[in-house]
């Protein structure tokens, strides 16, 4: 049941065709797990909290550095040295006190990921490395919950939404690992990509529109082009191949 304050706060989105009070109730009940409180994580959490997603758990082991501030917009100059999850969740609570925001300052590992994600309806990928992204992909498949992938490089970014057993997964898209390097990025890129991920999450919860499934959306900020590339489920995929076979 939405309160009078909630009806007023979300008035403009409740007015969207196909959204309504019912959609807002769904958002209020939803529990989103967000891996990462960096550039993508800041943007995603900001818009999920603003939209009224009932519970948001942010997980990130890092502390804030000066070089983060060009893009991680929930972390401000006075926050340097704080845990990113503490800084972010404090701002999110000020933005929307109705949302339950949880801060967990841990590294996601194979040993703790099942417990960390227990009880959550969906996983959002705002990580900075491929091995952890693979862990998230696997646990989403195992728990049969959607997984919202996003990544950035410079002025470029990419987004894909994964519905376990139904659509291509992250391992259908990527192979092997990627050499670690300091990645260049300008703040507007994770802002745009994070907003698209947040839009995907909101649409999924509310149950409206079409998702970026079996599609990789590539954003090129230098040419200001968006391109949708087709991604196919691989029957021999290391992560979801078994699910694909089980469906047949």
């Amino acid at each position, binding site marked *: 049941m939405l309160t009078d304050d909630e009806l007023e706060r979300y008035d403009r989105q409740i007015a969207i065709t196909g959204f309504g009070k019912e959609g807002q109730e769904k958002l209020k009940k939803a529990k989103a797990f967000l891996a990462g409180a960096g550039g993508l994580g800041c943007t995603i959490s900001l818009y999920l909290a603003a939209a009224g997603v009932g519970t948001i758990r942010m997980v990130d082991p890092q502390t804030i550095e000066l070089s983060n501030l060009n893009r991680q917009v929930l972390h401000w100059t006075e926050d340097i040295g704080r845990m990113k999850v503490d800084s972010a969740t404090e701002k999110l609570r000020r933005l929307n006190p109705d949302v339950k925001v949880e801060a967990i300052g841990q590294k996601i590992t194979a040993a703790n990921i099942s417990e960390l994600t227990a009880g959550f309806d969906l996983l959002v990928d705002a990580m*900075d490395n491929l091995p952890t992204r693979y862990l998230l992909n696997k646990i989403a498949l195992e728990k049969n919950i959607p997984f919202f992938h996003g990544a950035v490089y410079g002025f470029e*970014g990419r987004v894909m939404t994964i519905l376990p057993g139904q659509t291509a997964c992250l391992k259908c898209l990527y192979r092997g690992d*990627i050499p670690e390097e300091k990645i260049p990025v300008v703040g507007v890129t994770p802002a745009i990509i994070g907003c698209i991920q947040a839009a995907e999450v909101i649409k999924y919860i509310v149950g409206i529109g079409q998702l970026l499934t079996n599609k990789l959306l590539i954003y090129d900020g230098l*040419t200001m082009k968006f391109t949708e590339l087709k*991604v196919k489920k691989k029957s021999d995929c290391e992560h979801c191949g078994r699910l694909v076979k089980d469906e047949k």
Partner: protein
Amino acid sequence: MSATMNVPSNLRQFTGGQAVVECDGKTVGECLHDLARKFPGIEMGLFDTDGKLLHYLDVYVNLESSYPEELDKAVKDGDELHLTLFTVAGG
């Protein structure tokens, strides 16, 4: 065969900043080698020491991945290719 190749931003230093370039070849491999002839230096960002496509690159032909054929994937006149870099940063 002439096709267009969309080049990711990290390799545009070799194409004079061009995001889209023309390339010739009957396969993805031939098109990439044509790029290397036209834009010296770009091959370091395309191939490993065995001459295979770097494992963190994908080439899409008319919006579909060339994997697993990769370099052997056929290219027709007028095809549009996208060279994409696996991206893992979270900002």
